[in-house]
Every structure is written in structure tokens, then in C-alpha cells.
């Protein structure tokens, strides 16, 4: 199914929706496509008869929405309290430096993306990151760096 029809289908499921449905609609779109594309913003705007600027404004207000397609390797760094105490900020900075992108972004080759999440519910294993949904516990800068470099290497082969 092409991406366009996915959004269309979601909107069709909200046939007479008003502006109060904006969040559930955006959530469904993100669920289906992994992010909120410009095209999706325009479509939601037409569907709800709301200006696109407003849709984008509302969407960017919440941390949960992404505006770039995820990379092939999607790294989520937990910034919850426990992970913070255990040094997740340096973990995040390290990943950002390795990939030369910021949280919320995707590398230009589409391989990597980083996302900050607030708690993965694995506080006992802090600090945690997840790679494509797979949890990596008690990460050290060392471990993280190796992980990323390995993936990079794999892709250049």
C-alpha cells in the first residue's frame, strides 16, 4: 500500500471528524507511517478544515510526533529519571555526535534516526536505549559507540 492511501484510509475512518479529533488522527498516522509527513499535514488540514500551520503547530507542541521518516536503524534513547541519573544525557550526546544529527532527525542517507523517549519502563536496567524496538540495557558510552560503528560498517560493506 502506498503511503498516500494509508493516510487517506485513516481519514476516511474519521469521516465527520471535527478539530477535536486532531490528536487521535495524528497518532494513527504516525502509527501507520512512522512519522507525520508534510503531505499528511496538508491532508489532515483539508479534512478538518483547519489551516496547515495550525495542524503543524499543534503537532509540534507534543513530543510524541516525528516529522521525518525513521531511519533503517531507529535508536530511542530513554531520558526518564532513572536513566538520567545513570547518565543517559551523555549517551544521547554520544549517539548524536556519532551520527551527526540531533534527536528527532534522520541521517541524510536514511539509515539512522534518533528519538528521545521519556520512559521505557525498564528503569532497573538504566540507562537503556532501544534499537528498532530491541532493548539494550545498561549501556555505556563504549558499548553504544561500538554498536553504532558496527551498524555503520555493516552498511558500507
Amino acid at each position, binding site marked *: 500500500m502506498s503511503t498516500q492511501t494509508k493516510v487517506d484510509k485513516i481519514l476516511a475512518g474519521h469521516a465527520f471528524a471535527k478539530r477535536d479529533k486532531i490528536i487521535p488522527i495524528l497518532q494513527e498516522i504516525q502509527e501507520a507511517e512512522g512519522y507525520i509527513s508534510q503531505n499528511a499535514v496538508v491532508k489532515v488540514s483539508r479534512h478538518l478544515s483547519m*489551516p496547515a500551520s495550525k495542524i503543524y503547530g499543534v503537532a509540534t*507542541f507534543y513530543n510524541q510526533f516525528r516529522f521525518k521518516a525513521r531511519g533503517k536503524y531507529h535508536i530511542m534513547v530513554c531520558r526518564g529519571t532513572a536513566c538520567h541519573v545513570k547518565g543517559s544525557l551523555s549517551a544521547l550526546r554520544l549517539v548524536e555526535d556519532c551520527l551527526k544529527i540531533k534527536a528527532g532527525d534522520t541521517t541524510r542517507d536514511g539509515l539512522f534516526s534518533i528519538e528521545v523517549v521519556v520512559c521505557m519502563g525498564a528503569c532497573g536496567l538504566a540507562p537503556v536505549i532501544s534499537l528498532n524496538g530491541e532493548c539494550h540495557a545498561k549501556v555505556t558510552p563504549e558499548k553504544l559507540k561500538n554498536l553504532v560503528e558496527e551498524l555503520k560498517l555493516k552498511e558500507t560493506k
Partner: protein
Amino acid sequence: MLNIEVNGKAVQANQGETILQVLTRQGIKVPTLCHLPGLAPSGACRMCVVEVEGAPSLIPSCSYPAADGMKIKTNTPQILSARKAIVELLLSNHPQDCLYCIRGGDCDLQRLAKQHGIRNRVFSGERVRREKDTSSPSIVRDPEKCILCGKCVRVCEEVQNVSAIDFIHRGNKTVIGTAYNQGLNVSSCINCGQCVLVCPTAALSEKSHVNDVLKVLSAPGKYVVVQHAPAVSVSIAEEFNYKPGTDIDGKMTAALRKVGFKKVFDTSFTADLTIMEEGSELVKRATGGGVLPMFTSCSPGWIKFVEQFYPEFIPNLSTCKSPQQMMGALIKSFFAEREKIDPANIVSVSIMPCTAKKFECGRPEMGRNSHSDVDYVLTTREFAELLRITGVDPSVLEPETPDTPFGERSSAGKMFGASGGVMEAAVRSAYFLITGGEMPKYTIQELRGMKGSKELRVKAGKIELGAAVVSGLGAARKLMEEIKAGRSDLQFIEVMTCPGGCINGGGQPLRADIEAVKARMNTLHQIDKDAPLRVSHKNTQVKRLYEEFLGAPLGHKSHELLHTHYNKRDVLA
């Protein structure tokens, strides 16, 4: 009637009034940053705080209603230090390059800092670094200078019903931006500049062409001519400390010559010409089964609005170019031939009350043989800057008159500068076109004034027309929705993008309140009252233009030079 006390003095207030309204009436100037008279208060900036006895904290006067028995203080040390702290905080991440800033010397933030005696940097935050958006032909956005007062967002939404911009992100990452942070040029922005008029800082400004014009004025071999719009002569004076509503038409013409323009033309001349073309078009549509209602097409913001939001109504737009573009087309055809100048060497400048005119002159259909009809548009504000740079003071000059062959104008053409003016001019001449006679009384009071929407039924001989006048695109959208829903009693509709018309255009002097705008409007009506020539169809130079060059209204030459077409436009909206 409410009895309240202001700084120990008994004062009366009306039910429902805000404290700010009462204080303003009392001549007490309370500083505001986010307040927009006429719109619902937002209470975002807290600059307007006052003390109300018994209240637990300071009260924002712009959004708080006056109540009976209230005891208000406006200048206690606590109030002053709260206000000062707000300004200090706003400055904490501000670029503070007033010396190089387009609003330096004319900036609300700067004024407030001075007013509150801020002499040193109290809070030092990280200076904001954000890229300028220079993508639009009309408006420059400089988010580094933005203090997030939100006025632009509200004007764009509540007055213009465009909503090209909104608050994006949140907390200390908040910025004002378009959908997906794209350039304003691909957004739904219609270039009206109403946001520029309300912005307290340099975060919004017009795209300046002052330097380009200065350059061509001294370029060898260039023949630089200028036209000025009807609303400019009644507003430019404010930039030179005259009181609002002063008309300095003649002095302004003299000043333009001093600056170095070879010819000075009054766009009111082509406003008269527009009436001949548009009036004929209306009569033709009304009697020949054409598409009705017909909408006026002289306001470029409105045109873009239709192209992007109501493309199904494009056939309803008059095909007439705007007076600016008609003048431009004539300058590089008729005038060039007559004066034996190669149009390639003519630089055609126009002085407009409008930022959208910059967009209009760059539209690909607005020119011929790779010459644009108009090369540069300066707003009224930029014109004032040009005069200051060149050291020309209009106030000391003797009035002069515009140049031939476009040297005459009717007051009907001059009234294009105010909402209702195009309609009034059109009705006067349509009456003549239909009946062959003159209206018993020219003034049409119903079409005048600042109201966003005005209507009138016009009878001329056997023809009766429903006429509507709207200004501000919020009002226009309302009418469009009525028509979409089946309303069919209207045949001719004048739309001006800015509330009140060009006198309140986005390129006009800043800090004009509603009274100043009204004064500009009244002056245009006074000019009409006193004018010897009050109808476009009697303009002898327009007649001569038809005899010598154009032929007849809607004729072949007119079509080639004075008419155009519009297309559906896809924008990010």
C-alpha cells in the same frame, strides 16, 4: 455605569469595558505588547499590569474587566519594576543590534526599554540564532527579533482568515512559523503585510527595494519613472510629523522629482482607466449572460486568496489588471512609443501602500516581451526612507502636478484608496454607461466608512444590481461562503484585502491607530467633495488615450495590455 477609582481619583467606566479601555480614555498610557485593539485580548505579555486593591497579584489591564468600586493604581514601584523585569527578560536572548536594525529608532521593544530606564543587561540568556526567511517577495521574517507576542498570528487568523503562520514547537523552542517551517513563499500567506503593521519589533518587515531604486536612479542610460497610488499622498505625511489625514499630493510629487525620477505619474489615472474597463466588463457580463457576481481584481492579496482558497471563483474575478499594473503596461508601451524610449531602458517604480504589490509586480503574467510592467515597488514606509536617505524634505517644497500623458485624474480614481471607493467610482460610471446620463448625486454614503462589509442595491435605467463591498479577508471569506451556499442577489463585489482599504495597507506608516486610518479615509472623501472632476468617464486624458492608442474599452489593445487571467494555485495550506 461603574464608579471606580484610578490613582485616587474617581472615574466612571462602562459595563463590560476592560481596565485598559478606561485608563486609555483617562489619558493614562499603559504599555502593551500583545494587545490588539478590536480583537479579543490574549493576555500573553503582562506589560499592561496594574494594581487593583485587594487582588492577590498584579492584574493585566488589557484583559480584565472594570468592576464597580475597583481601586486601581497604575504607577506604583511594584508595577514599574514588574514591567521593567518583563522587558529585561525579553531582552535577555535578543540580538540587540538596534543600530543595524530595520526598526532601530522605531521599535516598540526599544521604546519600552528606554521608557523603563533599562541601562544595562540584567539577564544574559543565550542569544537566539535562527535563520531569516527571505523567501517571500513581500515579507521578510527575522525570527531572532521575535518576542512571541502572537499579534501576527492573530491578525493573520482573525482579521485575514489566512493563518499562514502559527506558534510552532513549545516552551523555549517556540517560534512563529509556517506549516513545516517552509518559506513564506510556498505558504498560504497572501502578502498583505497586516502582520508587519502589528509587529512590535523587526521580526516582520517588508522586503526592501530602497537600495535597488537608489542604484537605478544613478545608473547611466536608465530612464526611471515613478507612479504613486491614491492612498499614499494621504498617509506619507505622517512620516514627516504631519497629523494623520494630511494630504501632501503636490509636495510629494515635487519630492519625487527632487529624488531624481524623470516622470511622476498618479496611479489614480489608471484607476480611472480601470473603471472604464471594469465598468464595461460589468455591463457586458450583466447584459450578455456572463459570469456573475463579478469581483474586483485590484487587490493582489485578494487575488492570491481566491487562487488558493476559492479557485472555483476565478471566472468571477474581473480580468482587469490592477491600476498599478495598467500604469506599468502603459508606461512601457504607449509612453515609451510616444517619447521614443526603448522600453528596455525604462525602469518603472511604484510607490504603494501595499506589500502585496511587490508580489503582484513579479507575477509572470504581468509583463510583455520579457519586460515587467513594473520593476520595483516601494511601500509608503520605504518611500519615506528614500526621502530621508536622499535628504529631500517634502514639507518645504512647493506643490507640483503629475506628468503628461497621464496627468489628469478624477476624484473617483483617487477614492480607490479607501474601501468602497472602487465601487463608488464604478457605480458613477456604470450609471453613465447604462443610461447615458449622470447620477443626480455622486456621493454614496452607504459605501463609505470602516465597516468590513457594506451593501447597496444600485438602479441605473432598466438595470438593477446588487453591490457589496468588503475589506479584510475575514469579511471576504464570510461573503464567499454565503455565495457558495446559494446567495444570488449580488452582481458586483469590491474586495480590498486590508481592513478599510489601501489607506490601511500593510505598507503604510507604522503605529497608525484606527483614528489615523479614519482620518486618511476622510481626507480622500474630502478630496472627492472638493474635486472639479468626480467621474472617471470624463477624464479627458483617459479619453485621449482611447482615441490615440487603445481604441475602445475591452478592445484588442486593452486586452493585450490591461487584462490578464488567473490560475488555481497550490500552496501549503
